[in-house]
């Protein structure tokens, strides 16, 4: 399936559909949703009527000029519609590819949930909540549900775009399955949790299609401002007509300003640039989330992401790599480094846990000890058990064990040995640094300690530094004891941590921050995360998580990558910045348009006003037409910016504002002077005016 990540901005089929939709959207009922562009449409209609009247000889004005203005006003509306249609089209394309992935499959519905051998074959669309189905290797899962029996590897690429299969099993946090995904091996019994049309996939498609797109609070506030500006400019232009009649009557010169010129002036002044692109920016914001494989349940959630003040981050997987690794061997007194390394490696040879592997690797890297085959050595492996809480090998009469200090101490005591004071100190020291000590012993003799350490992800500290510059506090959530947590927190550079976190403590922490007026974002996957997810302002559920977690969150990360929270915040900010930047640009543009139109509009009454024609535009008509054309074209030029968003860099608010003001404020004043002049030169060069 075509993945949105690889799709170019102006992807052929989407662009073609968008062009068609631009015309469909001319429907006044649709246009009314956007007051700024609605006014442009009314103006276009008005000038079209005037052009017809002029061609019919009913109006004493040059018909060609009115027609040209009229055409460019229509184009202004179409360009704005095109921007919106492009943004919607990109979402629709994604939805289509998802829908294509959903074939109508048949399901094996169990007659008795306990007996997986007796089933009816029914179409998936007939399944209801709480029906139980069995899905065998090679079959598509017929609907959203929870695994209640069995374990299977599932290909979820239809949803996530990730080709690596994932494990789904009953109980625990990996029990949720999504309709339309494929079981690759083994079998599972699934209890359906969604009626047809309400499944996760259905809702995702609905969201992406933006069919029920609601305006976000900030978008509404901005629209009010734009409406206010539009009203001011509407009255400014409408009253210009009596002003002009008075000027003509009292100076007895020239003719009053025409309706065509007033409409042109109005459209140039009202904030069409941001008005035309506003909805595209909102849709594109959600679309950018989708490209990051995050489904936002509402635009409001995307917007809130930009406002987040506090990030709650799970230690494991977000801040640290999933597993601890051995980083040092600390021998007991009278034991050499090499001896300890050798014993530690032997004790871990059969240990397939990532920690065990890391001990073998460390011994090899540091002391050149080659990995040995446990069978060739004739050793017997002693696996980890809940009683002993140790693992190791028996070899040539040696009993090598490794485990937590208290477990090993108990074992030594039973054999008549004991943990020396020096080793105890080492153990405490490692724990204080946030590491995990593993003591290695041989029957009665303590050999030393292995230092296992959480490995902080590369670059994460810098990332947190950036967040701090953005004014966002990071809080690490971990089940570790406070001592360990503090050490890791310091190393990772988070602002705060919550140690020995329980779901209640998490919820409490979120409430505390919210009571202080802060917005909190978090990620979660387990069912026990659900209350906290529901409480958080931006709650990103992992797609690998339980159905309960997904229901509680307001975003779902299809890649199940907790680090993505950082990107989500950036996308939210980027959307707000894009709106602000284009608003500033749009308003700043008006300065140049006045200098083009005012001298042109009153050229016959007050020729002295040509002193304001600082761009030196050729004729009054070319000046007005150039301003209108610039106003229309700038929308097209800014479509990519609206869809991609203004580039966001994590710097402080003051610098960000200064940079954006320079580019979009000062730039917004200067660019139209150049643009209008260029268009005027072209119009004159082509003898169009």
């Amino acid at each position, binding site marked *: 399936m075509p993945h949105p990540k690889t799709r170019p901005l102006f992807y052929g089929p989407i662009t073609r559909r968008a062009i068609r939709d631009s015309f469909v959207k001319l429907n006044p009922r649709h246009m009314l949703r956007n007051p700024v562009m609605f006014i442009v449409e009314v103006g276009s209609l008005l000038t079209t009527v005037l052009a017809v009247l002029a061609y019919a000889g009913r109006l004493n004005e040059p018909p060609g000029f009115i027609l040209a203005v009229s055409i460019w006003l229509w184009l202004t509306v179409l360009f704005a519609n095109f921007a919106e249609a492009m943004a919607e089209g990109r979402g629709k394309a994604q939805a289509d590819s998802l829908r294509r992935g959903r074939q109508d499959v048949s399901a094996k519905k169990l007659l008795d949930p306990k007996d997986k051998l007796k089933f009816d074959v029914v179409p998936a669309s007939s399944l209801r909540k709480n029906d139980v189905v069995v899905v065998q290797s090679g079959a598509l899962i017929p609907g959203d549900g929870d695994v209640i029996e069995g374990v299977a590897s599932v290909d979820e690429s239809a949803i996530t775009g990730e080709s690596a299969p994932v494990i789904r099993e009953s109980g625990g946090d990996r029990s949720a399955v999504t309709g339309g995904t494929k079981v690759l091996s083994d079998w599972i019994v699934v209890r359906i949790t969604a009626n047809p049309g309400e499944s996760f996939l259905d809702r995702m498609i609905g969201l992406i299609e933006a069919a029920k797109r609601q305006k976000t*609070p*900030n978008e509404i*506030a*901005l629209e*009010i*401002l734009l*409406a*206010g500006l539009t*009203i*001011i*400019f509407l*009255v*400014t232009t409408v*009253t*210009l007509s*009596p*002003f002009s009649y*008075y*000027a003509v009557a*009292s*100076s007895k010169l020239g003719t009053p300003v025409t309706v065509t010129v007033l409409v042109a002036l109005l459209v140039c002044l009202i904030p069409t640039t941001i008005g035309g692109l506003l909805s595209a920016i909102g849709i594109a914001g959600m679309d950018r989330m989708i490209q990051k494989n995050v489904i936002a349940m509402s635009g409001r959630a995307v917007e809130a992401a*930009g*406002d987040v*003040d506090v990030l709650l981050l799970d230690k494991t997987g977000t801040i640290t790599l999933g597993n601890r690794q051995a980083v040092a061997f600390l021998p007991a007194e009278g034991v050499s480094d090499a001896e300890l390394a050798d014993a530690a490696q032997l004790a871990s040879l059969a240990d397939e846990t990532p920690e065990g592997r890391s001990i073998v690797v460390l011994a090899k890297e540091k002391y050149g000890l080659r990995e040995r085959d446990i069978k060739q050595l004739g050793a017997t492996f002693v696996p980890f058990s809940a009683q002993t809480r140790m693992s190791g090998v028996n070899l040539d009469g040696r009993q090598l064990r490794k485990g937590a200090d208290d477990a090993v101490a108990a074992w030594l005591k039973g054999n008549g040995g004991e943990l020396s004071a020096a080793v105890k100190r080492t153990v405490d020291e490692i724990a204080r640094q946030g590491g995990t000590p593993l003591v290695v012993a041989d029957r009665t003799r303590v050999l030393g300690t292995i230092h296992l350490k959480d490995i902080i992800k590369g670059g994460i500290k810098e990332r947190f530094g950036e967040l*701090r*510059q*953005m*004014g*966002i506090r990071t809080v690490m959530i971990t089940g570790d004891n406070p001592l360990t947590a503090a050490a890791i927190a310091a190393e990772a550079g988070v602002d705060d941590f919550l140690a020995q976190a329980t779901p209640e403590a998490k919820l409490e922490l979120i409430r505390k921050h919210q009571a*202080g*007026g*802060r917005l909190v974002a978090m990620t979660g996957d387990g069912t026990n995360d659900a209350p906290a997810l529901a409480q958080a302002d931006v709650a990103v559920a992992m797609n690998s998580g339980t159905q309960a977690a997904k229901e509680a969150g307001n975003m779902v990360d299809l890649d199940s990558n907790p680090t993505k929270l950082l990107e989500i915040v950036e996308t*939210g*900010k*980027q959307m*707000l*910045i894009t*709106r*602000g*930047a284009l*608003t*500033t640009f749009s*308003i*700043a543009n*008006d*300065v140049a348009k*006045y200098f083009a139109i*005012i001298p042109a509009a*009153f050229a016959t009454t*007050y020729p*002295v*006003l040509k002193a*304001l024609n600082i761009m030196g535009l050729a004729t009054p008509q070319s000046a007005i037409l150039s301003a209108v054309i610039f106003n229309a074209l700038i929308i097209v030029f800014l479509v990519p910016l609206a869809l991609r968003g203004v580039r966001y860099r994590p710097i*402080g*608010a*003051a610098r*960000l*504002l*200064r940079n954006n*003001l320079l580019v979009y404020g000062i730039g917004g004043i200067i660019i139209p002077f150049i643009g209008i002049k260029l268009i005027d030169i072209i119009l004159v060069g082509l003898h169009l005016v």
Partner: protein
Amino acid sequence: MTTNAWLQLALYLVVLIGLAKPLGSYMARVYEGEPHFLARWLAPVERLCYRWMGVKPQEEMDWKRYSAAVLLFSVVGFFFTYLLQRLQAVLPLNPAGMPGVEQKVAFNTAVSFVTNTNWQAYGGEATMSYLTQMAALTVQNFVSAATGMAVLIALIRGISRHESDQLGSFWADLVRGTLYILVPLSLILALALVSQGVVQTFAAYKTVPLVESLGPDTARVTTQVLPMGPAASQIAMKQLGTNGGGFFNVNSAHPFENATPFSNFLEVLAILMISAALCYTFGKMIRDTRQGWAILAAMTIVFVGLLIPCVLAENAHHPAYAALGIDQAPSPLQAGGNMEGKEVRFGITNSAEWAVATTSASNGSVNSMHDSFMPLGGVIPLWLMQLGEIIYGGVGSGLYGMLLFAIVTVFIAGLMVGRTPEYLGKKIEAYEMKMASLAILIPNLLVLFCTAIAVSTEAGRSGPLNTGAHGFSEVLYAFSSMSNNNGSAFAGLTATNWVYALIGGFAMWVSRFWIIIPTLAVAGSLGKKKLVPASAGTLETHTPLFVLLLVGTVLLVGALTHLPGLALGPIVEHLQLFAR
């Protein structure tokens, strides 16, 4: 411009800004009910006022009750002022035997004084009895100013409080502002003015012999009538309270109203003194004085930025004289530049400075005739009014107008830093934008619509004495003045017919109260919000960058709205004058 001119402007600014902190912190104490030295003497009077009014000062109001109180008080004030004018002929203290004021003019004047506009469709000495001047007009000079300040204080409370819908008591704010701030200040100023020769008397108009008789021998005029009256007390307040309604028709150009250069300095200082100091009061009451200084800085930047060109334009050589080879350089014997419509005892610099001060604040008093300014000198007072009277502005109203602009600025700027905008810890959302837009929109729409009506009707067109672009400037000036509650007149306009008296009165009323209500609504909404703690991602609103952005927003909105109108008036006049 001469060195003397620069020095005078600098002195003025230094004194104005220097007074902001002491006066501002005193006013903060007054409104927060903290002890201060005047309370020791006047507290019994304050309590007496509450007893008469039957209110409890500690009983706070939410924004709706506060608005209702403001409206009620103003409506009562309107009827009182209207009736006193109409009935003055039968009331005492009318030594000149003035008849009752004509309906339209009485309506216009009552609205004008209640709304702190003080547009005068009448000539004071030829229309109003002493009683009307004192009991109707001067009383409104005090209380309309105190009303504006009270609304500002309510807005400040809305900003500084959180999760509360109470904005304080309008009655307490009204009484405290009048009793502890306006009365003492005007007393001091009135005494200072009297020392300079400003009249303060109940004596009847005096007939005095002319120094030089005039007229043909058959009808030689040898005497003149000098109007008298309790002027100093009213003048002090009309300056301090940004009222501006003169005791005499020519306002502070009259020697009995503004006698010497020193009285002129005091009066022009009084125009902006309270409004500038209120910025400090604002900072003090929100417990972050940097915010107050930032707003004051934004106001001062615009003020100085427009003051200097105005003074320069008036000092510049007139092209018609230049063409005749007339020496226009300033010298001990002549002022140089444009002296038309200006008093010799004030000169060009002080006249231009007054014009800019009186229009940047919503004062409207004049010491020279703005109609006679050079086109570019005249466009500055005109545009300053159109900016919405927020450059220092009216007492209270200037700052609350500016704070609404700050909210709009924060909204656009806040988006550009990628957060839902917040101002002083409060999130700015759709409701605040709606109200702020409304408050900014209304005066602008009134200016444009009323001017359009005037130039489209016979009655409106009969108003201006001039034709062409200058006639248009006169009409535009009149409605810019009334729609922004300024009250200064360009002169050269007959303002007694229905267009100017009735529509103008309507504009003054709407502009005043349909800004006050959205302002109080914003105050109520902000007060209910939670306080958002500031972080590195928060846009700081006390930095030079924000100050410049605020200035930019104010100027851009003003320019984009009014450029076409200005182009057809003073800008054309300027180009025509210099094209010759």
